[in-house]
């Protein structure tokens, strides 16, 4: 959990942002009037189903495209539509499928090296040791630098994707379904790594997922999205014990669970609907 004082200094802020995509015949409002702020060192979960606008939001946070209306701020400064290299370096992305996000023709070492070269991080001679340190940080042996993504397992590849994001020494990591493609045992290990890294390196996470059980165990606050609108935003505990929105409740009701305690919790949440 983060300190109360930290909440006063949002590292990343979105003010009333909307995004409309125009097609030849119609317009799609992917995101509508979203206000949110992420405090330094916190893990904010963005939850919703497909078409809810999660990924549109992520793309705008990363500066891949600007919002149609509204503004975004990093450390209190307005983010321009076209971001400079240092601004892009500050917010990094880890995607769902590392097999498609890592270049198959480039060794792990070369992929990490590219991030260092583009942002000119560290002296040229010491980049090799930096790469070794990055691999070590995500729990991979340093000799993996000479391997190709195809020679790695899913969990190892996702660790490489995390190392690549960390190479840029970012303030914020946008994690877009980082463990959805992994087996449960591997998922648990990668989640643990992410949790450790956040505390060790004082990182800020925007954690995008549809899996509320994961959210419960890693996030400080949760923003729930439904068809482009943020329908609820609360700290994790509240979302799970007293959700204020019908859609949030239906999401919690749909989580497959494995213990009796969870079943009891789910039942109270679903029965609470008369309260609101």
């Amino acid at each position, binding site marked *: 959990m983060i300190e109360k004082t930290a909440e006063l200094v949002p590292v990343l802020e979105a003010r009333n942002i909307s995004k409309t995509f125009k097609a030849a015949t119609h317009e799609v409002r992917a995101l509508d009037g979203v206000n949110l702020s992420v405090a330094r060192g916190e893990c904010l979960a963005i939850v919703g*189903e497909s078409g809810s606008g999660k990924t549109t939001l992520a793309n705008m946070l990363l500066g891949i495209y600007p919002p149609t209306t509204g503004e975004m701020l990093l450390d209190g400064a307005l983010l321009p539509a076209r971001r400079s290299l240092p601004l892009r370096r500050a917010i990094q992305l880890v995607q769902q499928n590392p097999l498609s996000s890592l270049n198959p023709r480039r060794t792990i070492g070369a992929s990490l090296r590219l991030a260092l070269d583009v942002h000119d991080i560290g002296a040229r001679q010491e980049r090799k040791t930096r790469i070794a340190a990055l691999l070590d940080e995500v729990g991979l042996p340093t000799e993996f630098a000479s391997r190709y993504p195809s020679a790695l397992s899913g969990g190892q590849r996702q660790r490489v994707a995390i190392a690549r994001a960390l190479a840029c020494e970012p303030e914020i990591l946008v994690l877009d379904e980082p463990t959805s493609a992994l087996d449960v045992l591997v998922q*648990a*290990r990668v989640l*643990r790594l992410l949790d450790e890294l956040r505390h060790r390196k004082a990182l800020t996470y925007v954690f995008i997922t549809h899996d509320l059980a994961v959210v419960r165990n890693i996030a400080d606050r949760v923003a729930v999205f439904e068809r482009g609108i943020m329908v609820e935003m609360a700290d994790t505990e509240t979302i*799970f014990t007293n959700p204020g929105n019908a859609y949030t409740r239906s999401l919690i009701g749909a989580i497959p669970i494995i*213990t009796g305690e969870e079943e009891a919790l789910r039942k109270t949440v679903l029965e609470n609907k008369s309260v609101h």
Partner: protein
Amino acid sequence: MSDPILSLRDLKLGFKTYEGLVEVLHGISLRIGRGEKVALVGESGSGKSVTARIILGLLQELKSARISGEIHFDGADLEKLSRRERQSLRGTRMSMIFQDPTSSLNPVFPIHVQFHEVLRRMDRNLTQRQGMQRAISLLTDVSIPEPERVLQAYAFQLSGGMNQRVMIAMALANEPSLLIADEPGTALDVTVQAQTLHLMRDLVVRKGTSVLFISHNLGVVREFADRVYVIYKGRIVEHGPTDTLFSKPLHPYTKALMAAVPRITGGGIPDIAENSEAFLDPMIDHEVEVPA
């Protein structure tokens, strides 16, 4: 349970490669009683899907596959059947539902044409009109509103949840004795997945269909199955009734799997050790004896 609909005994599978035989299944034994819903749960690469493919008789077509062991379906030895006979079982007495409904439907034919093809496997003389009527009643069974409109549509015009319902209706169209569901609905949103699973469960219970439910998702398995087999590296490590297995998992691998699932009651992310030797411990069978 006497006279199961499906029984596998000591099923082994290997693939011939340039580097010799790669063993994938090391002697799988399982049985599914009539009307029973049985889950096979394990991680990717554990051998879940190849087991399903052998039961359907699909891997037997592959030259590099080496299969041994007994497979009995509805009293008949599947290995003794000819290729043609095996083929005639598929889509009629046993059928399958795949992970991604949208990609398992044919994008260039409307739904009703694909329905007709399935129904004609049982009745060669089925007319267009009869087929349409059957299809409409089957789609009504899976709670599809406006079944006439859905039948005229193409898969890509329907939502994932709708396609999944169409797949369920098609798989159950010929009233098969055995339904194999391989990670059904994993590609769908959670709320849609929950809905279609409940629907499928109610339908198979009503029709008395036996189900082999293949999944990596323990929560989904707990809500669907009567009995569970846990598979690890081509071996069954533990099996038993769903309630017993979830309340009292005994095998180190099953315990690790259960511990790794994040809980909505919180408690943080579990510390999962690397794959241990203990995962290869002998199988635990909750039905024969429950070890202390």
